[in-house]
């Protein structure tokens, strides 16, 4: 359906439909974020021998996050006097917009995808790189020393980890010969790439945690060192935007891992094909999200210098070796 729309001549009707679909996606994503936060708190609670939210919205605390967001919305909008006002205001938006933009290329099922562009993977990585601007700008514009340190850490970390991230995916691209995400899924019909590219998967997964700024790579916001890092001066809805960015990226990154390595909407066995692809996608996606939460409950934080060493001295060479190995095997045996 979307393909037809994309190829038909532009008009008010097309625009209307796309606008509507985008709003639907935004609502889906916001719904995910709302309940991902709740799920995270519940999972952490379960792992930490406590209950998590259980007061508002029945015994599962289903309305807890809604109430939290509401509170953030009606909070006073504080902008520090010494802050660089325009940058301070625009930084959360710069951080958030790419997070939402990358969702366009994710093929949730074989039918449901917003933009089936040829270089989908490249688009994802390029656009998501822009979020760094938002974080560094936010840290800089706050005119706070902790925020500055956090912003600088965010910049250094995310740029460093983007390289192993891209390099690890190259192994997959060598196999598929395509950057199109739908193509990548379709080629996994006879086996997911997690089986053919285990090294790439591990490197990609580790680098993705660093890209998401989650434990054990949560240095940009490391509460115990930098209080809150780059968003220490933010409050209310601007702060919510930074948090939203993080969770939307978690949504996007988990989707991307599902697409590249876990076979997207494809069922694990052909016999299970009667279950719709969307369900498979959601299941695999949830497993990835759960692993992120699990790691957060278990691991302590890296130190900044070790973090850089790890990116450049471990992940990067391993990813390069993986590309070499893949190329070698491909030319010799196929």
């Amino acid at each position, binding site marked *: 359906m979307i393909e037809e729309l994309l190829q038909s001549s532009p008009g008010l009707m097309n625009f209307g439909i796309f606008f509507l679909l985008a709003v639907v996606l935004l609502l889906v994503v916001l719904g995910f974020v709302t309940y991902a936060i709740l799920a995270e708190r519940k999972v*952490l609670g379960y*792992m*930490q*021998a*406590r209950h998590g939210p259980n007061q508002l919205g029945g015994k599962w605390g289903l309305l807890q996050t809604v109430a939290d967001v509401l509170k953030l919305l009606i909070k006073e909008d504080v902008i520090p006097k010494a802050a660089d006002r325009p940058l301070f205001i625009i930084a959360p938006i710069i951080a958030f917009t790419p997070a939402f933009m990358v969702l366009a290329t994710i093929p949730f099922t074989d039918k449901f995808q917003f933009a089936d562009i040829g270089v989908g993977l490249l688009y994802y990585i390029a656009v998501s790189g822009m979020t760094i601007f938002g974080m560094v700008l936010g840290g800089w514009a706050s005119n706070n*020393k*902790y925020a500055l*340190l956090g912003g600088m850490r965010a910049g250094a970390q995310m740029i460093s980890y983007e390289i192993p991230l891209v390099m690890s995916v190259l192994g997959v691209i060598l196999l598929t010969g395509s950057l199109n995400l739908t193509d990548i899924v379709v080629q996994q019909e006879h086996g997911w790439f997690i089986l053919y590219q285990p090294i790439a998967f591990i490197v990609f997964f580790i680098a993705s945690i660093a890209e998401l700024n989650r*434990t*054990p790579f*949560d*240095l940009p916001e*490391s*509460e*115990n*060192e*930098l*209080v809150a890092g780059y968003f220490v001066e933010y409050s209310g809805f601007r702060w919510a935007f930074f948090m939203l960015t993080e969770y939307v990226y978690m949504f996007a990154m988990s989707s991307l891992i599902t697409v590249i390595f876990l076979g997207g909407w494809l069922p694990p066995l052909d016999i299970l094909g009667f279950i719709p692809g969307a369900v498979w996608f959601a299941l695999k996606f949830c497993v990835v999200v759960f692993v992120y939460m699990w790691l*957060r*409950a*278990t*691991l*302590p*934080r*890296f*130190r*900044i*210098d*070790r973090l850089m060493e790890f990116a450049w001295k471990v992940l990067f060479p391993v990813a390069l070796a993986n590309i070499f190995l893949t190329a070698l095997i491909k030319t010799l045996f196929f």
Partner: protein
Amino acid sequence: MIRTEEMLLNVGPQHPSTHGVFRLVVKIDGEIITEATPVIGYLHRGTEKLAEDLQYTQIIPYTDRMDYLSAMTNNYVICHAVETMMGIQIPERADFLRVMAMELGRIASHLVAWGTYILDLGATSPFIYAFRDREMIINMLNELSGARLTFNYMRVGGVKWDAPEGWVDGVREFVPYLREQLKGYHNLVSGNEIFLDRVKGVGVYSKEEAINYSLSGPNLRSTGVKWDLRKDEPYSIYDRFDFNVITREEGDCLARYHVRLEEIEESLKILEQACEQFPAEGEIMAKVPKIIKAPKGEAFVRIESPRGEIGCYISSDGKKEPYRLKFRRPSFYNLQILPKLLVGENIANLIAILGAVDIVLGEVDG
């Protein structure tokens, strides 16, 4: 040309990892610390001066509020000082109750030290596990004294309350439980590569430096000095128990971490033996006069608190209040080495080093 300059960063007094209201003014070049100046006194309440107008029994609640994570040892040191001056013999049962309370307090304190230290390094779960187990100790001490944190349990000449029925059995059951939990602690944290990366070889000082800076407790023993007042100058009934003094040679943050965890195990040993030897009956208070007056003169006693040597000096002119009271507060002394350790480290190591010293601000500021 790029112009770089040093930045002055205020860590604290309101900061998640300074364990209270401790303030550290650090000069940083990028993330590397070039100078660190601790600023203390935000929690100063003048315990020592206040004590000059208080009767000895009235001073005890003030000591609860110094090292609020192991108030029992503070209770003991003031009582012990007055008892030494007056030459009072403590009934056996009271001695057992005191030692058990102090060892439980030591375990509780080390659990908090462990949990908060891992929290400082960025992992949240161990903190909650530590507090879950500490809660059981707090409940036991609550049964004993009627308070969860500020016990005010000991008196000159004994203890205020006898153990309720079944209390000793509760302690006896707790020992194997915590041993099992400790295994889990080690499995979860001690072998973690990221954790080892953060603490191994960080904040190293030598034996001589430790002694010169007058460090004590786990901070001293982590350098290999075998010095524990419970063994070297046994007070109360510690000479009756069989336990080891834990030492490590490395003198880094990891050594301090291991010393603390293993000291929990030694304290469990003491508790186990104390439960066996606990006298079935007996007095809990010695015969002391209604109004306690220390004889003219002075006395200094020191005992081993979880954080190191806590000392109490009393100078008396024979009245019911002390003429001068002085505490040697181990956290305060342990903190002195910090400016030296921090130079050349980065911000992340600052937190790791400060956490490993294990200060309690109530004690630092007095």
